[in-house]
């Protein structure tokens, strides 16, 4: 569309489009040139912001860890330890096995997702407009061709990646704790079971169907819950940003409400991860 006819829907569309990168025969291509590049397209904004925020998380926590003392902690260490203990308590309450992975996994998910969600509170037009300005002045691009989506959790790729990571761990833990046979038994002999061998064999397909759906539903619900909540929140911020001066009180109210949402969604993702892994590592069905 041409630059001068900016409609509301095009404005929203612009905000909801990721900056794309792909390699074509002519070398690296960006954005609209990648329209039909299929799977091998990279959302550079999602990647850059999420990895940047992840590095900030690791840098903050690593610096606290390297300066940590068993004596009287400073305020910064106290703050970091508060988060660590909060996550640790939740893990201890929910996950009863012994695993060195669950707690750091939960901490990473909680803080990383929180930081990515936090980007939602930056007024929607600031960074995209800044990116457009940079693109226009430095690279001579049309500012409408510069896309910048700063909340990585509104990109299904990121939430799906997290969910797939958790899903692989679930399967890994299931096999590690119960063995492959145990895992297959769990998938095929429940919830319907019978003492009669023949009936049991007949029931196997139904059980397999139900259990597979139950298993696959977990990563789907993880990915879509986080994505849906943040995408909807972002969309409402964009809509509010389009209503003129009235946006100020509306934006404030929605941002205040969103403070709750971003923490809650990070917490829910973390808790569900722990719960799913706890279920995967427990024998009793």
């Amino acid at each position, binding site marked *: 569309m041409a630059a001068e006819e900016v409609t509301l829907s095009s404005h929203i569309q612009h905000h909801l489009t*990721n900056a794309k990168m792909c390699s074509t025969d002519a070398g690296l291509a960006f954005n609209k040139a990648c329209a039909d590049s*299929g*799977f*091998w*397209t*990279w*959302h550079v904004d*999602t*990647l850059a912001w*999420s*990895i940047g925020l*992840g590095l900030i*998380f*690791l840098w903050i*926590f*690593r610096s*606290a*860890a*390297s300066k*940590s*003392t*068993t*004596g009287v*902690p400073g305020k910064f*260490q106290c703050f*970091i*330890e508060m988060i*660590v*203990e909060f996550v*640790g308590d939740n893990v201890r309450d929910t996950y009863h096995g012994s695993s*060195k*992975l669950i*707690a*750091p*996994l939960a*901490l*990473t998910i909680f803080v*990383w997702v929180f930081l990515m969600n936090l980007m939602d509170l930056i007024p929607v037009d600031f960074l995209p407009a800044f990116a457009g300005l940079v693109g226009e002045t430095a690279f001579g691009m049309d500012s409408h061709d510069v896309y910048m989506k700063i909340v990585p959790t509104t*990109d*299904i*790729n*990121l939430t*799906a*990646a*997290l969910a*797939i*990571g958790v899903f692989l761990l679930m399967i890994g833990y299931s096999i590690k704790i119960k063995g492959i046979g145990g895992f297959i038994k769990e998938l095929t002999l429940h919830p319907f079971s019978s003492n009669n061998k023949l009936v049991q064999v007949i029931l196997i397909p139904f059980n397999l169907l139900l259990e597979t759906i139950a298993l696959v539903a977990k990563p789907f619900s993880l990915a879509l819950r986080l994505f849906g909540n943040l995408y909807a929140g972002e969309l409402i911020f964009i809509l509010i940003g389009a209503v003129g001066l009235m946006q100020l009180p509306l934006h404030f109210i929605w941002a205040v409400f969103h403070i709750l949402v971003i923490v809650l969604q990070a917490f829910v993702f973390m808790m569900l991860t722990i719960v799913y892994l706890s279920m995967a590592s427990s024998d009793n069905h």
Partner: protein
Amino acid sequence: MNLNATLIGELIAFTVFVLFCMKFVWPPLNGAIEARQKKIEDGLAASDKAEKELERVRLEAAEQLTEAKTQAADIIDQAKKRAALIVDEETTRGQQEREKIIAQGHSEVESERSRVTEDLRKQVATLAVVGAEKILEREINQAAHSDIVEKLVAEL
């Protein structure tokens, strides 16, 4: 939904972050927290123990003090009794000494007196004999009448 290669990138990033967190972030932080908890726990236990010990020592000290007080009172009592006894003994001894000295004095005086009396008697006898001689110079023979004089002297 436009799933694409970003998914793979994010999956790799996620894995790397979790591994880094597991290696370099969680263990030192959690270790520090647990070590501090242990420290505080130990400190509280030690302070509890010390408090109990203090209470025990305090009781013991009070007990010892009471005992010492009783002992001191006993010793003072004994000393008083002893002193009274000594005073009594000395008084009795003094009394006896006095009586002895007095008795000695008495007997000395008595013997002196009897000696003097004897002397006097002899002198009187002599005097009487002399007197009687003087009277009887002319009449009596001293030898004839000496039995009478002797009798007289014995009666004095």
